């Protein structure tokens, strides 16, 4: 009621007090100035800084991760090369061992062969010596025996030697024949 009456009296709530408009305007423009000049840049900067910090942190983490991956890769490579090297060393050692064994075998074989040969040679030599001494002795003995049997001196050396040689040759050939027959 009184509201309507007041409106009729001209104190309508819709009618502005121009001083209030002015003060509102001044106040708002001052605030707007402060916001434009200080507040908005400050908060925009805070956002920006934080965004950069977060992105920087992410980049740093990514870099660290990449570095770790690279280090692991390198480590793996080293491990692999070490393994290969170890294998190579092992194989070398085995080859070397085999070679040494083979060398020793060969040397032993050579030595054995040499010893055998020496023995053979000695045997041969002794046999020859025995043969020679036997021949001489058998010749003398046989001559003596024959002279005793025949009763006549067979001092003619040349003849006696010839007889002995023929005798021995006969002996040898008969021996060889009998040896061939037994073989």
């Amino acid at each position, binding site marked *: 009621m009184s509201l309507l009456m007041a409106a009729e009296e001209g*104190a309508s*709530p819709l009618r502005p007090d121009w001083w209030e408009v002015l003060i509102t305007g001044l106040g708002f423009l001052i605030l707007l100035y402060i916001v434009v000049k200080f*507040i908005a840049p400050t908060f925009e900067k805070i956002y920006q800084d934080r965004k950069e910090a977060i992105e920087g942190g992410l980049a740093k983490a990514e870099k660290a991760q990449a570095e770790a991956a690279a280090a692991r890769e390198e480590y793996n490579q080293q491990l692999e090369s070490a393994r290969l090297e170890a294998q190579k060393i092992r194989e070398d050692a085995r080859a070397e061992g085999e070679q040494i064994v083979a060398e020793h075998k060969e040397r032993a074989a050579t030595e054995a062969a040499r010893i055998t040969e020496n023995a053979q040679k000695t045997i041969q030599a002794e046999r020859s010596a025995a043969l020679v001494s036997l021949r001489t002795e058998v010749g003398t003995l046989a001559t003596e025996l024959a002279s005793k049997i025949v009763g006549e001196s067979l001092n003619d050396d040349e003849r006696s030697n010839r007889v002995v040689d023929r005798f021995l040759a006969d002996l040898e050939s008969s021996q060889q024949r009998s040896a061939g027959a037994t073989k």
Partner: protein
Amino acid sequence: MLETGHVVAEYQAPTIEDMHLPDLFHIGSFGFGKQMLLMLLAVAVVAVFFMAAGRRRSMVPGKMQFAGEMGYGFVRNSLAKDIIGVHHFKPFVPLLFASFFFILVNNLWGSIPFLQLPTFSHAGSAYFMAGFAYLCWIAAGIKNKGLGGFLKAMTMPSGVPPAFYVILIPIEFLSNLIIRPITHSLRLFATMFAGHMAIMVAASLTAFLIQEVGGFGIVASLFSGVFGIFLFFLELLIQAIQAYVFTLLFAVYLQGAVAEAH
């Protein structure tokens, strides 16, 4: 009515004069009143709070900086960015930010004991805010599209058969360029005015029932008192919502002024 029956004094409903208390001082015809004081106080409160909140610029914000960032981020992201769009919103953020918090604090004065005056219940202040917003979005529109392009965007909605323009142009012109600023201001003013008036009525009725009527009136005063408290919280909600709505519409108008035609 209850109090008209046997009465000592008749109940006087509060009037507009009760919302315009005597000025604090006068300089010529200029009277400096409570409303103006609160208006300037709001400027100081908003400026000082956000300056202090943003002062340290730390990466990990304290409580105050966090609150400041929340407030700024709310206007920046959910009003400016979401409505105006990522390409154009940047220059309008300070405008919307200042509008929102200026109006919010001014409205909340209505719910703070002893101050208890939503300053936009005085029409002049609401006229200024809406008028300023009007000038801003018209300027933004003309700057963005040129005068012809802006008027075309405002009065000729696309996708309409040309024949309809005969009707549409006057209607759109009226609704967008004449009525829009009026509703923009009146919405803010009327809600603040009506809410303040309703609380004053509830409060003065409660006081009247207790002091002047007594007896049964004290029982009745419980109802008006509880209703007044309910209104207080309702007003608190409306004060925040109206600050949001004013800024939201401001952003929508700006968006209409800068958006490319579809």
